[in-house]
C-alpha cells in the first residue's frame, strides 16, 4: 500500500495551529477568568429582603431595583466586579472580592440610606424624595470639620419646614436628622445617650429659604464621604437583614490557589505519562486532545463569565480524568478490533464507531443528571452542575472528534499499518482471521 505523507503534513500543520492558538491565548484567558472568593479572598453576605414599609410587596421589580442600588453602593467601596445574585424569592447574595474592611462594607451595603428630617416628636418633615439626586457633597465648616452638604429640590418647602420647627419654641426647635429611622426609635430616647442614633439635631432660630442644607455631624472625613456617597447612590427600596456571611483572607486564598494549581499540574502530568506509557501512539494523541480539552474549558469559562472556585478547579481536574475515559474507551475498542485480526485502518474505523454509542450514552446520562442538578439546585450546586455540563460536553467533542481527526490522519497516512506495537497491542495476542 502506498503511504500518503500528505496526511502527516496536515497533522503537523493542525498541531502547530493549535499550539500557537493555545500558547498565545491561554495567558490572557486565565487572567480574565473570575476567581471565587475562596481563591482571591473577600467577603460574602446573604441578605433576606424584607419590606421597608408595611404592605410593600417583594417582587421581581423591587429585587432588581435593590440589586441596582447595591451595585451603585459597591462602586462606593471601590470593589471591581462584584457578584450580586438574586436567589429564590427574597434573597440577595453579594460577593465582594478583595474587600479590606468588612465592617465598613457591611454598613455601606445594608444601610437603607433613608434620610429623614424630623421634629422632636418624630414627625417626618422632609425625606429622601425632597433631595436632589446626586447633590450630596463633602465640605468643611468654619472649624474645618468635615460636613455633608445636600441640595434640596424646593427652597420653599425648606422655608416652611424651618418655620414650623422654629415656632415650636425654645428647647423644642430642633431639626432632627435621621439615617434609617426605625420603628421604635425616638428623639427623646436617643437624645439622652452619649452616642445617639440620629446624625444631628441642629437648632433652628430663623426661617431658612434655601436649597442648600448642611449636615454637621460628628463625622470623620471618611464617614462624611461615605454618607455623601450613599446618599448619591440612592436609598434602598427595601430592608436587608443579614442571614449569613463568610469571609476569606486574601493571603489564605492565594496560597490555596497556588497549592491547588500545583496539585492539578502534577495530577495532569501523571495522567499524561500514564496514557503515553499504556496506549503508546494513541496515548500521544490523547495528550494533544486532552490539552485542547483543558484549553477549551478555560475558553468556555472565560466566555460565559463563570466564577472559578476551589471545588471548581478540583472538578476541572476530575473532568480531565473523565475526558481520559472517553479516550480509553475508544483505544480499548481499537485494540480489541486489532486483536481480532483487523487491519489498523479497519480497526480504527470499527473502534471509533463502536465506542461512539458507549461514550454517547454514558455522557448523555451524566449531562442529564447535571442538567437536573442545575435546574433544581441552588448556588454552589448550580455552579458545580454547570462546570460538570461544560466539561462533559468539551470532553465529548475533543475526545471523540479530536481522536478521529488527529489519529485519523496518521491512520490514513498508512505509516501505522502493520505496526500494532504502536497501539500497545502485542503481536502474539492477535488472532489470525
Amino acid at each position, binding site marked *: 500500500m502506498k503511504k500518503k505523507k500528505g496526511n502527516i503534513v496536515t497533522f503537523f500543520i493542525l498541531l502547530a495551529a493549535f499550539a500557537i492558538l493555545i500558547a498565545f491565548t491561554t495567558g490572557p484567558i486565565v487572567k480574565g477568568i473570575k476567581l471565587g472568593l475562596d481563591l482571591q479572598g473577600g467577603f460574602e453576605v446573604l441578605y433576606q429582603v424584607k419590606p421597608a414599609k408595611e404592605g410593600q410587596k417583594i417582587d421581581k421589580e423591587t429585587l432588581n431595583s435593590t440589586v441596582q442600588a447595591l451595585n451603585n453602593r459597591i462602586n462606593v467601596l471601590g470593589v471591581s466586579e462584584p457578584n450580586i445574585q438574586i436567589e429564590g424569592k427574597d434573597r440577595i447574595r453579594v460577593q465582594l472580592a478583595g474587600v479590606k474592611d468588612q465592617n465598613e462594607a457591611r454598613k455601606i451595603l445594608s444601610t437603607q440610606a433613608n434620610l429623614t428630617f424630623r421634629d422632636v416628636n418624630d414627625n417626618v418633615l422632609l425625606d429622601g424624595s425632597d433631595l436632589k439626586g446626586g447633590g450630596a457633597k463633602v465640605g468643611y465648616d468654619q472649624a474645618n470639620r468635615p460636613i455633608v452638604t445636600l441640595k434640596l429640590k424646593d427652597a420653599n418647602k425648606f422655608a416652611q419646614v424651618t418655620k414650623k420647627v422654629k415656632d415650636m419654641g425654645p428647647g423644642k426647635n430642633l431639626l432632627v436628622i435621621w439615617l434609617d429611622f426605625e420603628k421604635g426609635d425616638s428623639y427623646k430616647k436617643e437624645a439622652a445617650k452619649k452616642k445617639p442614633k440620629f446624625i444631628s439635631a441642629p437648632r433652628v432660630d430663623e426661617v431658612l429659604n434655601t436649597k442648600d442644607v448642611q449636615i454637621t455631624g460628628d463625622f470623620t472625613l471618611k464617614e462624611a464621604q461615605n454618607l455623601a456617597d450613599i446618599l448619591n447612590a440612592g436609598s434602598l427600596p427595601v430592608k436587608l437583614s443579614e442571614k449569613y456571611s463568610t469571609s476569606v483572607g486574601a493571603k489564605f486564598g492565594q496560597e490555596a*490557589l497556588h497549592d491547588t494549581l500545583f496539585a492539578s499540574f502534577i495530577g495532569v502530568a501523571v495522567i499524561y505519562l500514564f496514557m503515553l506509557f499504556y496506549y503508546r501512539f494513541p496515548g500521544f494523541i490523547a495528550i494533544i486532545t486532552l490539552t485542547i480539552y483543558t484549553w477549551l474549558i478555560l475558553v468556555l469559562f472565560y466566555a460565559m463569565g463563570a466564577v472559578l472556585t476551589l471545588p471548581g478547579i478540583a472538578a476541572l481536574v476530575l473532568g480531565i480524568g473523565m475526558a481520559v475515559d472517553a479516550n480509553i474507551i475508544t483505544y480499548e475498542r481499537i485494540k480489541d478490533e486489532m486483536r481480532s485480526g483487523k487491519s489498523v485502518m479497519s480497526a480504527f474505523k470499527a473502534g471509533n464507531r463502536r465506542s461512539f454509542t458507549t461514550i454517547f450514552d454514558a455522557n448523555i446520562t451524566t449531562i442529564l443528571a447535571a442538567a437536573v442538578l442545575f435546574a433544581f439546585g441552588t448556588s454552589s*450546586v448550580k455552579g458545580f452542575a454547570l462546570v460538570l455540563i461544560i466539561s462533559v460536553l468539551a470532553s465529548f467533542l475533543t475526545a471523540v472528534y479530536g481522536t478521529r481527526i488527529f489519529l485519523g490522519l496518521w491512520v490514513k497516512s498508512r505509516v501505522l499499518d502493520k505496526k500494532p506495537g504502536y497501539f500497545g497491542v502485542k503481536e502474539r495476542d492477535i488472532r489470525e482471521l
Partner: protein
Amino acid sequence: MNFKYDFVHHRKIFFMFSAIITIAGILCLFIFKLNLGLDFSSGTRVQITSDHRLNDIDIKNDFEKMGLKPESVVLSGAKDNIASVSFKGVLSKEEIAKVKEQYGDKNTNANTVDPMIGRELARNALFAVLIASIGIIIYVSIRFEWLMALASIIALLHDAFMIIAIFSILRLEVDLTFVAAVLTIVGYSINDTIVVFDRIRENMKLSKVKTSEQLAKVINDSILQTFTRSINTVLTVVIAALALLIFGSESIRNFSIALLIGLVFGAYSSICIASQVWFVWKSKQMKKQKLKPATNKA
C-alpha cells in the same frame, strides 16, 4: 484479558461486603452522626479588632490557653488588624466573657452563626439528586431497559452513601465542599456503570440468552471486556484526586478524600454491584416469563 473471574458467581460476597459497610455506616450515623463543620452546625464567630497587626497563630494559641478550640482564624482589615475566629457550637456567656477580658470589651464582637444556609443547600442537593435519579431512570429505560435503570440508580446511591458512611466512621468533617464531592461521584458513578451496561446490551444482542447460566456468562464476559477500561479510567481519576490530596491546599483535603472514596467505590460498584443486582432481577424476570409463555410471545 487473560485472567478469568466469575463476577456473577461471587455476587453474594460483594453484596455482603457492601451490606456490612452500609450497616456499619447507618449505625455510625445514628450513634455518632456526621462530624458537621461550621457550614452545617451552629457556631459562634468572634471578631477581634485591634490597632496593630494580628497574627493568626498567636490568636489560636491565646484561645487554646483559654480552653477554647477555634475552627478557623481569618485575618482581614487594611493591616491584618481584624481577626474572625470561628467556633463550633455556641459559646457560653462565661467563655465570651473570658475572650472579652483578653482582647478588651470594645474590640470584641461575638455572633452566633446560623447554619440554615448550609442545611438548605444540602437538602436542596439531596432533592436535586433524587429528581436527577428519576431522569436517569427514564433515559436508561428508553435506551437500555428499566431493570438496568434501577440497577444503575442502586449503584449510584450505593456510592454516594459509601462516602457519607465512611466520613461518619472516620469522623471526617463535612462542609460545603463535601456536597460538591458527593455530586461529582454521582456523575462519575452513573457514567462508569453505563459503560458496563452498554457492553452487556451489545453482547445480549449477539447471543440468545435463555438460562440464567447464559446470562451470567454474558455479564462476566462484558465485565471482563470492559475491565481494562474500568481499571484504567479509575486509575487516572484516582491519580488526579490523589494529586489534589497530597499537593492541594488544606482547605480541599476533605473534598479530595471524599472524591477518592467515591471513585474507588464507583469503580467497585459498576464492576461488582450494578451488573450483579441486574443479574438477580433479570434472571427472576426470565423465570417469570418462562412460566407464562403466552405473554412472552404476544
